[in-house]
C-alpha cells in the first residue's frame, strides 16, 4: 500500500456527475483496497459509476454481470470439460494440456492482469444467497488456486472492486464487513441540473425548469408504485427534444408519459387525475417546501 500522497484520486468524469460523498467513498475504497458496495434506487447510476471510475482512474474495466444462476466459482475460472471431451473425440486442440481448457472468469482475469483493473460485480443480489460468502476469501486475499492444474493465480495489483446491489436479497454480514458502503441518494434539483446538462447540454433553461418541476412533482405523488428515476428523466427529455414539442405544452401537460411511468396502474392513476381536472405544477413554488429553500 502506498502512502496518502500518491493516491490516484477519482473526482468524477465529464460524463458522470458524482456527489462529494460518493467521490470520497470511491477514493476511500481505492486507498484502503476494499470492495466498494453501491446501493441506491434503480436508475441512479450505480452500474455507470464503475465505467466512469475506470475512465477517471484510467484503468481497464472488467464487468461481471450476476444472474440468478451465477456461481462464485464462475468468476474465478471455468474448466471447459465439454470442449476437452469434444477435442479428444475429434482430435482438435492439445487435449493433453489441461490449461488449454481453463478459462479465467472476470475475477480471475482481474487478478491475472498486468495492470490494476477496475472490476464491476453488477447486481450481486441477483445470485444465490450464499454467493457473496463464497467470494470472501478471494476478495480478501486476492488469490485462488486452479485445482485442476494446481496453479495459483495471485493478483499482481489488487483490482478496484465495485459491487452494486438492488437490495433484492440481504447480503451476509461477513461480506458487508469487508466493504466500504455507499448509498446513492436521489439527486436533488441542483445536482440533477448538472446531470441533465451532461446528457443534454445547452438545454433551454426555462424548459429544463419545467421538466424538472414535473419530474419532482411526479416523484412526490404517493400513489405511484414506481417513481421515475434519473435515467427515465434523461430518456424523457430525449423524447421531448426529438418531438420538438412546444414549451407551453409542457407547462400544462406531461407529454410522453410512457417514458416516465412504467407501470400500467401508475399511468391509469395519472389519467384519472387528469380527468378530474387535476392541475400540474408550473413553478417551483407549486412544489413542497423541500424545493423552495
Amino acid at each position, binding site marked *: 500500500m502506498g502512502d496518502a500522497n500518491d493516491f490516484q484520486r477519482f473526482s468524477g468524469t465529464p460524463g458522470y456527475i458524482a456527489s*462529494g460523498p460518493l467521490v*470520497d467513498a470511491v477514493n*476511500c475504497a481505492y486507498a*484502503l483496497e476494499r470492495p466498494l458496495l453501491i446501493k441506491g434506487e434503480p436508475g441512479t447510476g450505480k452500474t455507470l459509476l464503475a465505467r466512469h471510475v475506470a475512465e477517471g482512474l484510467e484503468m481497464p474495466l472488467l464487468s461481471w454481470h450476476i444472474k440468478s444462476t451465477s456461481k462464485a466459482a464462475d468468476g474465478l475460472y471455468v474448466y471447459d470439460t465439454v470442449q476437452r471431451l469434444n477435442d479428444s*473425440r475429434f482430435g482438435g486442440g492439445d487435449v493433453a494440456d489441461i490449461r488449454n481448457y481453463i478459462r479465467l472468469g472476470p475475477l480471475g482475469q482481474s487478478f491475472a492482469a498486468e495492470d490494476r483493473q477496475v472490476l464491476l460485480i453488477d447486481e450481486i443480489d441477483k445470485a444465490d444467497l450464499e454467493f457473496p460468502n463464497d467470494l470472501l476469501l478471494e476478495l480478501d486475499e486476492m488469490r485462488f488456486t486452479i485445482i485442476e492444474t494446481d496453479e495459483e493465480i495471485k493478483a499482481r495489483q489488487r483490482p478496484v472492486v465495485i459491487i452494486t446491489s438492488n437490495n433484492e436479497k440481504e447480503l451476509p454480514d461477513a461480506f*458487508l464487513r469487508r466493504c466500504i*458502503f455507499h448509498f446513492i441518494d436521489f439527486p436533488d434539483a*441542483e*445536482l440533477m441540473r448538472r446531470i441533465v446538462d451532461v446528457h443534454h447540454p445547452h438545454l433551454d433553461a426555462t424548459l429544463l425548469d419545467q421538466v424538472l418541476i414535473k419530474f419532482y412533482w411526479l416523484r412526490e405523488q404517493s400513489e405511484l408504485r414506481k417513481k421515475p428515476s434519473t435515467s427515465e428523466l434523461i430518456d424523457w427529455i430525449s423524447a421531448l427534444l426529438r418531438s420538438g414539442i412546444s414549451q407551453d405544452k409542457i407547462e400544462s401537460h406531461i407529454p410522453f408519459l410512457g417514458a416516465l411511468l412504467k407501470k400500467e396502474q401508475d399511468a391509469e392513476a395519472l389519467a384519472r387525475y387528469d380527468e378530474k381536472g387535476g392541475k400540474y405544477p408550473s413553478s417551483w413554488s407549486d412544489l413542497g417546501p423541500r424545493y423552495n429553500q
Partner: protein
Amino acid sequence: MFLDLFYGMRDEGIPVALQEWNTFLEALKRGLHGSSLFRFYHLARACLVKSETYFDAFDRVFARVFKGVEGELDITDEVLEWLRDPENFQELTPEQLAELERLSSDELMQRFLETLAEQDERHDGGGRWVGTGGRSPFGHGGQHPTGIRVGGKGQRRSAMKVAEERKFKDYRTDLNLDVRNFRLALKRLRQLTRTGLATELDLDETIDHTCRNAGEIDLVFRPPRKNEVRLLLLMDVGGTMDPYYEPMSQLLTALHEERGLREFEPYYFHNCIYDHVYSRARLLRTDALPTGDLLRRLDERWKVVIVGDAAMHPAELMEPHGGINPHATSPTPGVVWLQRIAGHFNRTVWVNPDDRTLWDQSHTTRVVQRLFTMFPLSVDGLGEAVHALVGARV
C-alpha cells in the same frame, strides 16, 4: 469521543465490529476525510454502516456524539500534516487495536479537536467552529448560513446538518415490515427436487458414462430442478384482525409475488375455520368452499400457513355452531376442523400477528398452540415458520 461513536452505534443496534472500526481508523490515518467534518461524517458512514436501513440510527448517534463539534472545519495543512504523521497514531496500530482503551482514544479525539480549535482562534473568521466549551452554542447559525449544496467542490454541507435532518428515517426496517422484508423471509420457501421430463444435460454423469464407455460419448439427461413447495394459506380476516390489515396485505402481496412456488392457494375465514372457507376476503356465501373438499383435493404434501390471532370466545372454538356468522352454521366445532387440518397435512404452521406476550393470556390461543406451532408475524418469525415448513425435521 471516537469510542462513544463506536459504542453509541452498538447501543443503537447497528452491527459494527472491530473490523469496520479498523477500516475507519485506517482511512482516518490516511487523511481521507480531507478537511471537513462533512466528509468526516460520510467517511465514517461509508466505513462503519453497511446498510441504508441504519443510516437513521447512525445519524442519531453521530448527532449525539459530535453535538459540540458542528461547523465547516477548514482543516489547514498543519492539521493534515498532524493527521498524516503516523507518530500521532501509533497507539492505533492494528495489533493494539484489539485492546483499544477508551482513554487513549479520547485523548486522540481531544487532540484532534484541540488542534482544530486552535486553528479557529488564530484565523479569525476561518473555520467555523462551535467548541465544546460553550463558546458558541450549537445551532447558532445566523452569522454562518449553512449553504445546502451538495456535489460541487468547495460547497460543503455541515455534517451536523445532515445528521440532524435524519432523512434516512424512511429506510428503517425495525418500525415497519414491508413487502420486501417478507419476500426475503419467504425466499427460503423452496424445496428443490428433480421431477418431470429429463431435459437437462447432466455433465458429470455424461463424463462418467463416457469414460466407462471407453470414450464413446454417452449423453445423460436429468429432469431440471424445480421448487416443489405447494402452499395453502388460510387467513383470518375481519374483527380482531382489522388492526393487522397492513402487515397481512403485505404478506399476501409477498406470497403472490413469490414466483418460485409450485402452487399457491389462499383462502379466508373469520375467527376460526368451520365447515367452509372462502376464496375471497369478503367472505360472501358465493365464495364459500367446503373445508372438507379442500382437504380431499390437496394432499398431505401441501404446506399450510394459517394466519390469525387465535383469540376468540371459547365457545367459538369448542362448540358446535360456534361460528358467529349466522349464515354459515356449522355442526362441527372449529377445533375439530383445526384438528383435521393439523392431522391431514405433514407440515403446518400458525402465524400470529398478536404480540407474543399476549398468546398465553387467551385460552383459545393456548388450545390452538397445542395443535400448531405458533410463530409471530414478523420477519424473523416468518423466517422460523418457513424453516418449520421446509427445513429438516427436528
